[in-house]
């Protein structure tokens, strides 16, 4: 039983967009250890994306490849959560410059990491054996990503007044974007019906427990959000994804087929 291609692309696009976003810290990390840690987490995400794109490309046929899927689709073709494409700072218009804020990076990694340990765990039981194999590997990595992010949420939240204020601001800014996790897309609904996907709504209680426990330890409060549900996984993105893809895809489009 094969998972719908759109479902594979959703998982792959999540991984590649967050991997690309976090790679911006490479060489600019707040401390050397975190610079290296973030680069390694990005490497895992890009590795997961490659396996998923390779699987999707093999099933699409027609000359599709991992590179054509990563580099030659436009932003409306991407199925990632809006949360993952946001810049590493609080709300600003897309072209405004701001210093990156590591609290935003960490809180985002934490919200996504807490989701993905649950998603990958569920997908290890997928009726799509190829997807289940990717999930089994990704789960092992996601656990370390979550552990890393949760550690830092506590260090920042329960740290100095400055780090606490920035961590709380990051939580307040990003929490609304997690609403997108719980409203299934047509691809997710189709995948669940076919026994190859995970019912995201069923993960919500576990995600809440994970998040609440860490936020409490970090002395951070959980904001009340209602109303706005982003639609990145339906291909409707914030203005930030285009800039991210411009950087990620520029080389491959300027020099198609380039190797080194």
């Amino acid at each position, binding site marked *: 039983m094969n998972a719908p291609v759109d479902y594979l692309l959703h998982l792959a696009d999540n991984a590649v967009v967050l991997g690309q976003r976090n790679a911006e810290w490479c060489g600019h990390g707040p401390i050397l250890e975190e610079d290296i840690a973030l680069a390694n987490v990005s490497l895992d995400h890009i590795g997961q994306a490659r396996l998923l794109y390779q699987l999707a490309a093999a099933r699409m046929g027609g000359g599709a490849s991992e590179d054509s899927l990563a580099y030659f689709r436009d932003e409306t073709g991407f199925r990632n959560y809006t949360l993952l494409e946001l810049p590493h700072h609080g709300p600003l218009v897309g072209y405004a410059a701001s210093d990156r804020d590591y609290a935003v990076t960490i809180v985002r990694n934490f919200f996504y990491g807490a989701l993905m340990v649950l998603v990958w765990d569920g997908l290890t039981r997928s009726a799509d054996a190829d997807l289940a194999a990717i999930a089994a590997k990704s789960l*092992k990595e996601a656990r370390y990503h979550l552990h890393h992010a949760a550690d830092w949420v506590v260090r920042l939240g329960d740290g100095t007044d400055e780090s606490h204020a920035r961590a709380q601001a990051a939580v307040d800014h990003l929490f609304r974007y997690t609403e997108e996790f719980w409203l299934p897309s047509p691809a997710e609904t189709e995948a669940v019906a076919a026994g190859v996907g995970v019912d995201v709504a069923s993960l919500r209680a576990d995600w809440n427990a994970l998040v609440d426990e860490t936020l409490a330890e970090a002395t951070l409060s959980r904001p009340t959000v209602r109303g706005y549900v982003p639609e990145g996984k339906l291909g409707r993105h914030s203005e930030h994804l285009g800039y991210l893809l411009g950087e990620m895809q520029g080389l491959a489009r300027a020099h198609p087929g380039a190797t080194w």
Partner: protein
Amino acid sequence: MSTLVERTWATLSPLTDPEIPVVSLRELGILRDVTATADGVEVVITPTYTGCPAMGQIEDDVKACLAQAGIPARVVTRLAPAWTTDWMSDAAKEKLRAYGIAPPSGTRPAESVVKFVRRRPPPDPVACPHCCSTHTVVSSQFGSTACKALYKCLDCQEPFDYFKPY
């Protein structure tokens, strides 16, 4: 054909991990299987971490090594069952320790995801590969590569890499 299979294992046995040149691909559990085919052998390898940059090098090394030995081979990458540090032999773990990398402890992420991410010290302390003290602390959960964490020994004061359970 079994002799060709045996010859393949013997030919590949000196190949080591490009990042950790003291342990062989077989000892690490990356080299999974060799079977006879109609026109040669099929060699099965499995990736460690999904993004490990050494995997491409490993596949190239395996192909080059077999080509040089004149063994017609097809190299296949298989994801399942997922690679685990449990496949690492005791001899390999001892080589890691001698090389200055603390080998993976017996503790693997618990079955229950929620339990694992609770922030508790690992039940099995990580021993310093230099002085064997278990009086150690984690400096960063990701070290020089994704598969390692960075630790510090509080007795001999040396920093060291810890090969994380996977």
